[in-house]
């Protein structure tokens, strides 16, 4: 009887019996052939690459084309559309005057998807993408909205999506963590800090938390041995530690010691595998040409996209990129376009690259941020200085690969890109769908904490968005 069968038969609640620590031991011991997880059905995706765009990208400038808005330009948003929607205190005092999308749009590919001229590379791969234009959240401020987008609940403390996924799936890679986070390096102080609870493990064991791969001489904290300690001495030290720990194990009988020996060995392997992963010198020139000039600059979003593909090749389950600074309250023509230039070519290149390598079929790629932006201009609406405030009632994300239909658009907003007109997709449904693609039934995937069975999709009924499944 294998573990999966056993778990299914007993319907056992993972957390209640601290299975996490057992799994941790097991996966560390390298017990081959045991699926370290809880698959409920056939998985279409083996891994996720989540391209998180922090700050709230404007659907009106990027994807949700509303040419009809021109005739409303500068007029007040009708109450029938607004329906009492809250505003942030940044614009709640001002008139809500309509600012039509300022970017030009084209139809792309056979699917004819509408994508802004600000994202020409994304447009060029539109036939591989599935746009969801009817995303909905209920949070209007960044930290709660991003916390909800990534953990299912607006208050910090729950496990992140990636932590749930690595908890459920375990890792096929013995030399790298299951869940890796990459953050674009940017010089300006961010208005939206990227809290580590966005990739935290919450009440799940900490081994499931995302490990941040840093753009520094220590890509993982404490990875680098100190100056003057060569690798062969480190090896000797670890041999000594292992031998003495085994003696201690024989004396005390504590199985935790065996685990510790294995973890120290994995640490040693990581000291080789992470720098190897991080070193792009074995990538041909053509790769950098594909991902664009910024990909030559370590720490850039583009370079991180190449790393994401390398991590996918190495079997890492959940790879999450963060690109900050999409909070465009002003100056869309300079500010928003800057973030588009950072991300457009590399995001599209990642899709092309995965596809060329046969990895897109079983890699689920998600692009999106915590909410959208409102149709009213913030500041003087007809000035180039104008921007947009936060908007929770509709926003656009795209997905690709991993069992998602390619070349479709799901859901639609009203004429104002204000309310969802068809097929709303709340954040929970996105999570349920992504878990489904990973072969996990979100309703059965629970962890008991403080007396409650928690799940990523929370207490509201969540549904898999079947229409987008390939």
């Amino acid at each position: 009887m294998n573990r999966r069968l056993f778990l299914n038969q007993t319907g056992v609640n993972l957390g209640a019996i601290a299975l996490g620590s057992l799994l941790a031991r097991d996966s560390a011991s390298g017990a081959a052939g045991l699926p370290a997880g809880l698959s409920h059905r056939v998985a279409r995706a083996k891994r996720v690459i989540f391209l998180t765009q922090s700050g709230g990208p404007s659907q009106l400038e990027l994807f949700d084309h509303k040419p009809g808005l021109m005739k409303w330009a500068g007029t007040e948003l009708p109450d029938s559309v607004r329906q009492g929607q809250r505003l942030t205190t940044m614009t709640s005092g001002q008139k809500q005057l309509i600012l039509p999308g300022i970017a030009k749009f084209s139809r792309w590919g056979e699917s004819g998807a509408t994508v802004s001229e600000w994202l020409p590379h994304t447009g060029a791969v539109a036939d591989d993408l599935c746009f969801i234009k009817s995303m909905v959240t209920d949070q209007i401020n960044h930290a709660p909205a991003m916390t909800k987008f990534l953990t299912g609940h607006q208050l910090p403390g729950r496990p992140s999506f990636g932590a749930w996924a690595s908890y459920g799936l375990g890792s096929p890679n013995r030399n790298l963590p299951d869940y890796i986070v990459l953050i674009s390096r940017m010089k300006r102080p961010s208005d939206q800090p990227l809290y580590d609870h966005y990739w935290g493990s919450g009440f799940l064991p900490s081994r499931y938390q995302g490990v941040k791969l840093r753009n520094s001489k220590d890509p993982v904290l404490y990875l680098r041995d100190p100056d003057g300690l060569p690798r062969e001495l480190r090896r000797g030290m670890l041999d000594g530690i292992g031998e003495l720990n085994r003696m201690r194990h024989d004396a005390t009988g504590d199985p935790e010691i065996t685990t510790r020996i294995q973890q120290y060995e994995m640490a040693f392997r990581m000291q080789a595998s992470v720098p190897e992963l991080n070193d792009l010198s074995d990538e041909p020139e053509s790769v950098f040409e594909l991902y664009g000039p910024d990909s030559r600059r370590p720490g850039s979003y583009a370079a991180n996209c190449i790393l994401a593909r390398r991590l996918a090749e190495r079997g890492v389950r959940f790879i999450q990129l963060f690109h900050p600074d999409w909070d465009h309250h002003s100056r869309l023509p300079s500010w928003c376009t800057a973030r588009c230039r950072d991300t457009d070519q590399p995001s599209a290149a990642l899709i092309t690259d995965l596809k060329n390598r046969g990895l897109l079929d079983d890699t689920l790629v998600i692009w999106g941020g915590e909410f959208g932006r409102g149709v009213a201009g913030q500041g003087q609406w007809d000035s180039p200085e104008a921007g947009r405030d936060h908007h929770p009632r509709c926003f656009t994300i795209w997905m690709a690969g991993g069992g998602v239909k390619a070349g479709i658009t799901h859901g639609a907003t009203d004429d104002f890109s204000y309310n969802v007109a068809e097929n709303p997709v709340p954040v929970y449904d996105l999570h349920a769908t992504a878990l489904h693609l990973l072969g996990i039934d979100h309703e059965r995937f629970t962890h008991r904490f403080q007396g409650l069975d928690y799940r990523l999709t929370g207490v509201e009924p969540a549904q898999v968005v079947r229409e987008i499944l390939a």
Partner: protein
Amino acid sequence: MSSLCRRLFLLLSLLPGLWAFSASGQEGGVNFSREVLPILADRCFHCHGPDASHRKADLRLDEESEAKRDLGGGLVAILPGKPEDSEVWKRILSSDPDEVMPPPDSHRKPLDARERDLVRRWIAEGARWGRHWAFERPVRPPLPDPSAHPVDAFVQKRLAGENLLPSPPAPPATQLRRLAFDLTGLPPSPEAVTAYERDPSDAAWQAAVETLLASPHHGERLAMWWLDAARYSDTDGYQGDAERTNWPWRDWVVRAFNDNVPFDRFTLEQFAGDLLPGATPEQILATAFHRHHMTNGEGGRDPEESRIDYVIDRVNTMGTVWMGLTLGCTQCHTHKFDPIEQRDYYRLFAFFDSIDEDGKAGTAAKPYLKYRSPQADRAVKEMEAHLATLQPRVAAARAAAEARFARHLDSQVASQATGYRAWRPLTPTAATSAEGTTLRIEPDATIQATGPNPRQDDYRITLPAPTDLPRVTGWRLEVLPHDSHTGGKLSRGKTGEFILTNVKLLVRRKGQSQVRELEMAGAVADYEKEAKTRAYGKVRDTLDDDPRNGWTTEGADATKPHTAVYELAEPYRPSPDEELTFVLFQRSTIGDANIGRFRLSATDEAGETVRGLKPSPLEDLAAARPAKADMIDPALRKRLLDQFLLDESAYQTELATQNEANRQLGELRKAAGDLNVMVLAEKAEPRQSHVLVRGVWDAKGETVSRGVLPEILPWPDEKTRTRLDLARWLTAPEHPLTARVVANHVWQLLFGAGLVRTTEDFGLQGEMPTHPELLDWLAVELVESGWDLRHLIRLIVTSDTYRQSSDASPDLLERDPENRLLARAPRFRLPAWMIRDNALAASGLLNPALGGPPVKPWQPEGVWEEIFMGRYTYQPSVGPAQYRRTLYAFWRRSSAPTFLFDSAQRRVCEVRQSRTNTPLHALTLLNDTTLLEAARVLADRAAAEPARGHAILSRHILSRDLDPAERAVTEREHQRALDHYRVHPEAALAFATVGQQPSPTPESAPAIAAWMVTASLMLNLDEAMTRE
């Protein structure tokens, strides 16, 4: 069956229910509250429990009268004595998917054979009802053996029932080490271990217990528990994550534990010290407990929404810490399992709803207490003393540097060339644009824009590294007018002005695809338009990746050239196989302002040359042409000296150390003044509290007044008016939960796990106690001792159960892998903070001072910067402050101290620590500077007495000597290291130069480095980080 399955099966068979089952099997009669109620709660209450909104079929099984009433048509859910006529039993047995309970779509697992049997027997035995065990007031149970120690009496009774014996006592050194870690979080001194090994009598044990309980470090150890529960942090947590100065509260906690303040008093002051008659500042300070929640100052957020979050956080924290109740559930709906209505929740909420706060964060998070810490002066004096030791070193380094300067100046004067220029023009080999501008390189290295004139553009200028310069310290951009530009000005845009939004300087080595970015320390220009933030003007804003600001000279004469100078953060040393690319981004909002003509230059001069636009000191020297050095104008000489000193690395290092110490001294002095501590204070006019529909902050339902949980312990309204009343209710002798929960916390501190494993949940979904009678006995003892925590601790650590060996035989391990029976002492990894404290103490680095402003232990560079893109920089504490206990480490909520690899996160209250075992821990302990520095200090000791080196290390790190087999291993690795370092003394020097320790002499370095390897090896042993 695989071994894993077997383990899992064994684990399942050890679930608490089964133990209870076997226990009841012996005594006959099913126990409702321990055996049946948990099943009903888990499988039935979700739809047939307290929450009316989710109730199905109008049936509730959480109340006896409802469960046994006639449902009509002769149906009764539970008919005492007759399982076969009870609908509950029929539905459990049913094979019809529409009938069976729990229904398949509920995702609640069906009852297994054991559970079915319990339910059937319970009904057959008459379905006697009762309450959940934890909601009944604890009654002191009789001791099974009045002559035995109470703890042992209960534990051994249970063991006897399982046919098990307790383990023999642990070796004396292990016992003392265990005790020292548990009571103080620090290891015993080698001397104390030796003394106790010589006389391991009970009297000596009692004396050791008293010594450790009386140690000021005891209060620190308990405080770490309490800080996690209190979600204590030095920052807000959200958005800007602004700093707060609530740390005097932390010192209040340490004092309270060291003074052994009774727990009911401790509770009262933290809940309502401000309301006590004639409240002292310390009593008001205590109430900071309820202000340690995260605060959100995010722009655009409604402060009232935040305020509601804070009130909710207080209620939930109180529920978890004092009562072991998951009150958070009832924020949105009546509890699905425990008898707590949503309305009850908001009556508790009302106690905290009228705090004189307005939901703001940062420095506006009133109410505040103005408070001066009595423990800050010590830190100031310590830093002043440290500075005094630095000053002579700086002066000596300066004197040496000045002597070198005099010689340097002589040679400069002798070799000066006429027409010396600090800046060399850079001749590009390629100049391209992103959006279509044609860039023409002219013979004098200027670049002229021609052809298309797009709205925005980026210029990329590439050239070989200028190897004619020994180094590049900065570069210069000259923006030049030209006749082909609008009005002969600076650009071809409509206005003739230019806007430069960002610049980058990239280095690419030949044959490599990736580039390296050279950081810039600053930028200056001959003219900048006056600009507020996020507008175009300042050249410094071209360094921040933000297209909404940048450099323009608008307002100056645009027919004249303008110049910007950039200083590199680190000098760049040109290499013949490298090329440089300058990228000029021109991405302003309106655009049409691309530079028309420009030239790039570089210099190797440091200091004012790359920080200003005047002629450089060396240019002025060349112009002055003095015949001898002493003829140089004093002002110029000073400028030349300042520039020279920048390259004197020994002096710069000393100076930087002193500057940092001075900066920290300034911070400490500020911390020694009046501080704003966030505390509780009541609004003059209380707010009207409401039930919040579905927990939504602005969905106000019915109004509620203050009140307590009637199902837990009803109290009349006149006794539940203030926070004082609330605290008194919590610690009332008849309260069923608080004493049990607190006794369980104490047990967890001493055994690594509570008697109730779910420390945070004593409700129906929590686990049953492993030793219910022992828990109740301890709870009653706690109350009757006057809530004397120290008494309880003393009692437990003097038991044989506490002192027994933690070794586990394979049989025992199979039978009881989680050690629920306590046939052995627990063996578990120390919390991360204790591992650090242990390294400091074992090495002798520890600075044992109590209290005061937070300190900053070593942490890898750049961690804060990454989160906030540079807004905050972490500067490790200098001097003795570096070696303070982890309790005092600055806690930034968005980035907890990195060396605490699996600690509580301090976002919300946490009362049970996770203990994980991952490669990231291993890396931390192998490479953290604190541990390496401790290894270095230990190495110095071992190297001083090499014959006893291994013994010195093991006595300090493991509190014992190594046996010969172990010693063979450490000697082998020591020899390996020594052999290496004798051949590579420079590596030895590098490895042994760590933290604030002075470098060893070159002669001693190999030996010290080898001992350091050995010490680090021992510090990384499982035993070194484990409480055995």
